[in-house]
């Protein structure tokens, strides 16, 4: 049997793991679908049952549900990432998970792809479809068309703070945050979500302190920093930092995973 990475075995492994995880994944995604439907319905109960316009109150009927859905999506994504390697720490499932004849790289890639890419992508698709459905039912502009309009505006007006580069830099930064939770999922043996949140908080203390000191002592420099961050140079720096930290967290996760032992 080949000891290095094999795509064929990776496929077999992914199929087996998905078959085992089917129920918990469907519960998570199904729960999110129900949440999305209910939250849009709750904020538009008056419009649905008594009539009226959805744009009343500055579009609160679709702005707030989008905010709640985004928050729920963020929570599920990060919570799910924290459980990426849960089975390897489980007393009942650890042995069989480690002893399954697949390469460590295949097991790691599966956990990373599922929790960093697949689950967030499916959640985004669910949120977008739900928004499109309610937009169609209640007659407001769905999030895709709103974002498309905003995107074309930001691309055309290159001098505006929101350039395409700035957007990509921020997406990569978000991804590095997700990779941090993936690393936390394997670095901590228990309470992965809470401990990663705590680690995140501790690591961001210097930034908080710096920002507070600079704002209180020299507000001009803080404003200068913020405008620099939205400039092209700043965006490149954010992008580079995001890529660096994504790779760093992934490397830490991999190193830890490849030397993990069952001590319980």
């Amino acid at each position, binding site marked *: *049997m080949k000891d290095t990475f094999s795509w064929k075995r990776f496929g077999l492994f992914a199929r*087996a793991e998905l*078959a085992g995880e089917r129920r918990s994944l469907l519960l998570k995604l199904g729960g999110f679908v129900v949440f999305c439907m209910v939250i849009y319905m709750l904020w538009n109960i008056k419009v649905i049952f008594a009539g009226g316009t959805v744009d009343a109150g500055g579009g609160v009927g679709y702005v707030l549900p989008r905010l709640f859905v985004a928050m729920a999506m963020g929570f599920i994504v990060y919570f799910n990432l924290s459980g990426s390697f849960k089975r390897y720490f489980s007393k*009942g499932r650890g*042995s069989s998970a480690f002893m399954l*004849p697949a390469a460590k790289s295949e097991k790691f890639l599966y956990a990373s792809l599922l929790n960093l890419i697949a689950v967030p992508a499916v959640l985004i698709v669910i949120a977008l479809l739900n928004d499109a459905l309610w937009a169609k039912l209640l007659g407001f502009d769905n999030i895709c068309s709103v974002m498309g309009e905003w995107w074309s505006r930001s691309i055309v007006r290159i001098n505006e703070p929101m350039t395409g580069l700035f957007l990509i830099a921020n997406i990569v930064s978000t991804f590095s945050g997700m990779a941090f939770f993936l690393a936390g999922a394997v670095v901590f043996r228990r309470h992965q979500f809470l401990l990663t949140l705590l680690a995140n908080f501790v690591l961001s203390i210097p930034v908080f302190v710096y920002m507070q000191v600079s704002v209180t002592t020299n507000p001009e420099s803080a404003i200068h920093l913020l405008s620099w961050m939205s400039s092209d140079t700043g965006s490149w720096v954010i992008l580079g930092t995001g890529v660096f930290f994504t790779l760093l967290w992934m490397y830490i996760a991999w190193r830890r995973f490849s030397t993990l*032992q*069952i*001590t319980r």
Partner: protein
Amino acid sequence: MITFKHVSFGYRGGRLFDDLNLDLKRGAIYGLLGKNGAGKTTLLKLMAGLLFPKKGEISVLNRIPRKREPGFLSQVFVLPEEFDLPRMNMDEYARAYGGFYPDFSREQLTNLMRELEVPEVQKFHQMSFGQKKKAYIAFAIACNTPLLIMDEPTNGLDIPSKSSFRRVIASVANEERTIIVSTHQVRDLDQLIDSVVVLDGSEILLNATTAEITDKLQFVHLEENDPALYAEQTIHGRWGVQVNDSGAESPLDMELLFNAAVANRQAIKQLFNR
């Protein structure tokens, strides 16, 4: 086949094994005996690469377990004492996981499930612990790995199931396959194993075949003042273990052997390391 050379290992609390040496041969059924907390499970985990030694070398099937290479993992099956199975039935489980083992036999699995009286269509989460254990034992055997490691496999099995387990293990044993069964219930291994490893006080007290043991020791009924390595009073009189100077054969009593090894460490070590 399995070699431990000067292996040291310990958890955070302290050192469990220090300079441990062990050599297990291919094609035998080993009974790994030891008291609670003696380190049986740790020893099995070191063999499987689930734990890494602090010092020394471990070689299993000419590979280094800690690397956890697929080629190694496909030759070893570990049946842990505690386990969870996914919400599937055995057919779904075999289709999902059987493909990872080159010699996995679906037909053999069906026969073993029948022998152990476990319904194949029932979902694992609807089974009792004993049924789940028997199902997992059947799958472990059907994978036909050259090394099968079982940690307390008879825990949770009822009396008929323990007999079925012994029968099944005896039927699949062959020269290409090594089976290691760890237990503290020594009676469960009677008439099953052909080699015994006794682990106590973080060291290997005894590693010998049953033939060597019965060649060197006698398990006999003793008179009141007969000398013995170990003796105990039962309702059938005084029974014990003596050095076999006469060359007479006696049936191996695992419980007496274990108690003798623990109670008279130096004598047993000297006798078998001669």
